[in-house]
Each structure stands twice: as structure tokens, then as C-alpha cells.
């Protein structure tokens, strides 16, 4: 009996020592498989970070944000010294999208970055937060007015509460739209079904609704690009890019997916399956001219219209103001122009950020009725104008209405009037 016990004890200790050795061998093997840490010390922070150990293959996000200067953590957050993926990503801001409006101030803000002063034109975050794309103020006011919850169309609520202490529109603040305070069933339904189309909200589920939130909704191309890593390692649509060369497809991610049915307060998706730019650009019922589908939205619509101007606006109509005449003029007036004499003109900065045109001092560009530079449109000596597509870099020339046989009525300048003669057939 004693012999058996002794043998058993020997066997056990031998097995234990073998297990110990195997464990050590496994740890050694596991350790040897770990990537060699790649250290980066960004100029901006001076603090080492190891994100490139796994993400060295990501393309530079933009010429204005080189990784050697910004690193990754300044924008994305995360644990800069961690080599374990879960730990490294544990404190990232906004998952893979640090520009989500819930975290954008921390990720993209700062007086030298995107929440600087209006005088320096660095109040980008304030502009976005107060923009109609973010507040959805007009739609909320319209629905509440329609169903008797307010007596006029004045905006009182936004998707989130927002203030503008230096208002030029007279609207100093919007309260957050609270669905629980609404009693009308149609407004309830509106709140449940129709609030996913703004920059704060995650999109509805489904490929047809794919889009980004926050700044990335416009500035990060969603289509025709390879997937990037997601919050938990899964793939996500979009690419590691920030651009001001925004294609119409990016705008269509929100603006041309279908229509609201106000009777049922539901969103009806487009039923046609567009395969060409002409089909894709507008829904079948829409009318448009040649330039309205050959160009990209940002070629005509200004950044003030799209991104806001820092003021709270009552509705889309009060901020979207560019018309056909902005570029083409009328029978009596040429479009407004401005000759660039100041090297610090904002037009040069915008052309620098999207270098599709080589603007020079002395060039004459078009400006809108509100003074925004149409920096990609230059007046030529022969009286015509040259436009460069911001997303396509294509050159277009066009002439003013003045001096032509156009039969327009000077008081009828909305696009629908121009469509009477110039609409494209399809």
C-alpha cells in the first residue's frame, strides 16, 4: 500500500512539473507572438503612444491632421500605452467616430482647433451644434404647429438643448425636445419615427440607412471605400479620412433616401434602385437642371448653409439661401463678385484645404448674397465664369443670364421657375 502511495506521489509531482513547464512554454510562445511595440511621440502632445503597433496600416486621415503631429489619442482617446486591444480601446471617444456630437468638443474642440473664436473662423463646433442639421428645429416646430401643440411656426425645441448668446437671428436658445411632454399621438409618433435623421442620432438599422454621425456624417466618405475597424474590432463602413471634397453621395446618405408620410408619421424608403448619377441624385418626382445633377451639392451650397453659421435658425428655409441667380445673376444683374486682394482672405484657406483650384491674389471669385465666397468659381476675362468641382476637380464654364434670351421674371428666382425651361428630361 505504501509503495502504491509513493508511486502515486511521484506520478503527481512529475505531472505537476510537466504542467508547469508547459505553462511556461505557452507563455513564452504567446509572448513571442506579440507585435513589437511601435512608439509614436506626436509633436502636439509629446507623450508616447503605441496605437501604431496595430494601426500602422491606416491611411493618414487628412493633410491637416498628420499622425506625426497629432498622433491618435488627441482625437480618438483610448489608453495610449496599452498593447492589449480591449484595454487600448476601452476609453476611446465615440467608438470609431470621435466626431460624434456627444464627444466632439473633447475630440475636435479647443481654441486652436475647432471650437475657437468666430473672429478666427474657428467656431466649427458651435456652427454645427446650432445648425438646422443638428437641431432639426424647423421640422419639430412644424409638426407641433400642425398638431396644435404650438400656435405658430417659431422654433422652440431642438434635438438637444442649444444656446447662442450672440444671436443674429433673434433665437437665443432652444430647449431639448422631450417626447414625454407631448400628448398628441401624431407628435408621439413623429418623435418615435422621425428623429433619426440628424447629426446627433445613430442611423436606423439597415444598409439603406448607413451613415456616420457628427462631423464624419459629411466629412468622412461613406461609400466606395474600404471598411475601417469598428469599436469592438468589427468592420465599419467608411474610411479613415476627413475631407472637404464632399461628393453628392455623402449628402444623399441622409437627404435622398425617401420621404416622410405625414399621415402615418413613417419614413417611406425610395422604391427605385438608382444605378446612375442621374437616377441617384434625385427621386423620380424631382425636377432639376443639368448643373443640379452634374455638379455636387457642395459646388453650389455653401458651408454656411450646410454646416450652419453659428446662429440658431428657425428652419431650413432661413439658412438655405443659394439660388440659381447666385451664380448666374438675373437679366438685370450679374452675379456678385469679389476680387481677392487680401492674402488672409478666407477663400485662400478654403482653397488650401481642398486644393482643386489655384487661387491667386487678383483673381475675381463669385460671392453669395450673404457674402460667402464661392471660392471654386472664378470670373474669366471674357465675361464667363469657370467653376471647378470641389469633389470631382472637373472644370465647367458658364455664362451669366444677363444678355441672353432668358424669359425669366426678375421676381421669380427660385429653382422651380428655372425648371420650367431648363429641367432635364429623364
Amino acid at each position, binding site marked *: 500500500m505504501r509503495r502504491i502511495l509513493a508511486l502515486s506521489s511521484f506520478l503527481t509531482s512529475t505531472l505537476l512539473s510537466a504542467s508547469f513547464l508547459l505553462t511556461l*512554454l505557452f507563455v513564452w510562445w504567446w509572448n513571442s507572438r506579440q507585435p513589437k511595440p511601435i512608439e509614436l511621440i506626436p509633436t502636439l502632445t509629446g507623450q508616447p503612444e503605441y496605437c501604431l503597433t496595430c494601426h500602422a496600416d491606416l491611411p493618414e486621415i487628412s493633410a491637416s491632421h498628420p499622425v506625426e503631429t497629432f498622433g491618435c489619442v488627441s482625437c480618438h482617446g483610448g489608453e495610449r500605452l496599452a498593447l492589449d486591444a480591449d484595454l487600448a480601446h476601452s476609453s476611446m471617444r465615440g467608438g470609431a467616430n470621435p466626431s460624434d456630437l456627444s464627444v466632439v468638443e473633447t475630440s475636435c474642440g479647443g481654441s486652436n482647433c475647432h471650437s475657437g473664436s468666430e473672429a478666427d473662423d474657428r467656431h466649427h463646433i458651435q456652427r454645427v451644434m446650432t445648425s438646422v442639421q443638428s437641431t432639426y428645429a424647423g421640422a419639430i416646430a412644424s409638426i407641433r404647429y400642425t398638431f396644435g401643440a404650438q400656435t405658430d411656426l417659431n422654433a422652440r425645441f431642438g434635438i438637444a438643448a442649444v444656446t447662442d448668446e450672440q444671436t443674429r437671428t433673434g433665437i437665443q436658445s432652444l430647449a431639448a425636445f422631450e417626447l414625454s411632454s407631448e400628448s398628441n399621438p401624431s407628435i408621439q409618433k413623429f418623435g418615435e419615427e422621425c428623429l433619426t435623421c440628424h447629426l446627433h442620432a445613430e442611423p436606423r438599422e439597415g444598409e439603406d440607412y448607413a451613415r456616420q454621425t457628427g462631423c464624419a456624417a459629411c466629412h468622412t466618405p461613406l461609400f466606395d471605400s474600404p471598411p475601417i475597424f469598428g469599436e469592438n474590432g468589427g468592420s465599419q463602413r467608411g474610411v479613415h479620412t476627413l475631407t472637404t471634397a464632399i461628393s453628392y453621395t455623402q449628402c444623399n446618405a441622409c437627404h435622398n433616401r425617401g420621404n416622410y408620410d405625414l399621415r402615418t408619421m413613417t419614413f417611406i424608403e425610395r422604391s427605385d434602385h438608382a444605378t446612375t448619377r442621374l437616377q441617384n441624385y434625385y427621386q423620380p418626382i424631382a425636377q432639376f437642371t443639368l448643373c443640379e445633377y452634374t455638379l455636387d451639392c457642395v459646388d453650389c451650397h455653401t458651408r454656411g448653409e450646410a454646416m450652419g453659421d453659428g446662429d440658431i435658425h428657425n428652419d431650413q428655409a432661413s439658412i438655405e439661401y443659394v439660388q440659381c441667380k447666385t451664380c448666374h445673376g438675373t437679366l438685370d444683374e450679374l452675379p456678385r463678385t469679389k476680387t481677392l486682394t487680401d*492674402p*488672409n482672405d478666407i477663400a485662400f484657406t478654403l482653397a488650401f484645404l481642398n486644393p482643386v483650384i489655384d487661387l491667386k491674389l487678383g483673381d475675381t471669385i463669385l460671392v453669395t448674397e450673404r457674402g460667402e465666397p464661392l471660392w471654386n468659381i472664378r470670373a474669366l476675362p471674357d465675361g464667363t465664369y469657370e467653376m471647378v468641382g470641389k469633389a470631382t476637380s472637373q472644370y465647367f464654364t458658364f455664362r451669366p443670364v444677363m444678355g441672353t434670351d432668358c424669359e425669366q421674371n426678375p421676381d421669380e428666382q427660385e429653382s422651380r421657375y428655372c425648371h420650367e425651361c431648363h429641367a432635364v428630361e429623364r
Partner: protein
Amino acid sequence: MTEPSRRDFLKLARAGFLWLSGALALGGLFRFLDYEPNPAPKTEFDLGPVDQFALGSRTLLSDPPAVLLHTESGFSALSLTCTHLGCTVEQTTDGFACPCHASRFDADGKVTHGPASQSLRKLRVEVTEAGNLILYTD
């Protein structure tokens, strides 16, 4: 010669396992003790003999990003790190321009166009007894 008993075999195997484990553990210990953290970023750069830089020359340096000037009054240097957010500025015909956010500086490093608001930083340059130029970035 007698054949080893089962007990001898187990003894031998156990000793072998323990020796191997010990060797592996020692290897790990040596690796740990041998670890050297990354050195702190350099702040002192030996640019070589003074006579490499002729009077009147403006020499662009890549590491550290700086421009070395040799004038009648001696050697001086300007950092090429943009004072806005830290990108490396590029030399132009009339000064320097930042490729990130379009700040511009004149040839003396003064801001001529924002968003930068401060001049390019002047760096200290010294000549050693051996006749080498030393550039300090701290």
C-alpha cells in the same frame, strides 16, 4: 546493467521538467532585467564641423526640423515646428508655410498669416571647443 524502474523514470522526467522550467524562467528574468526603456527624445544635436556651413548659408535640417543660419553675427537657428499645432513648416520663396493649416511665416520666422499666432521658435546654437556646432531644441 539493470533496466531503470518506473520510479527512476519518473524521477528523471521530473528533474528534467524542473530544470527546463528553471531555464525558461531564468531566460524570462534575464529578458526582464535586460529591458531598456526608450530613451528620452534628444534635445542636443551635433551638426558636425562649423566649416560645413558657409557664411551666408541657410541650411534646412530634417532632424530636428530646423533651419540653420550663418550670418555675419554668427550662427542662429529657427525651429520649423509650426507654433499653431506642431506640423513641420516648409520653406517658400519668402519664408515658411505650414502644410497643415496654411500658417505662413516670413524668413525671420514672424507670423504673416494665421492660424498660428506666435513666431517660429529660435533655437540655441553653440560651437564646441572641437569646432562642432551643437543645436539645442529644449
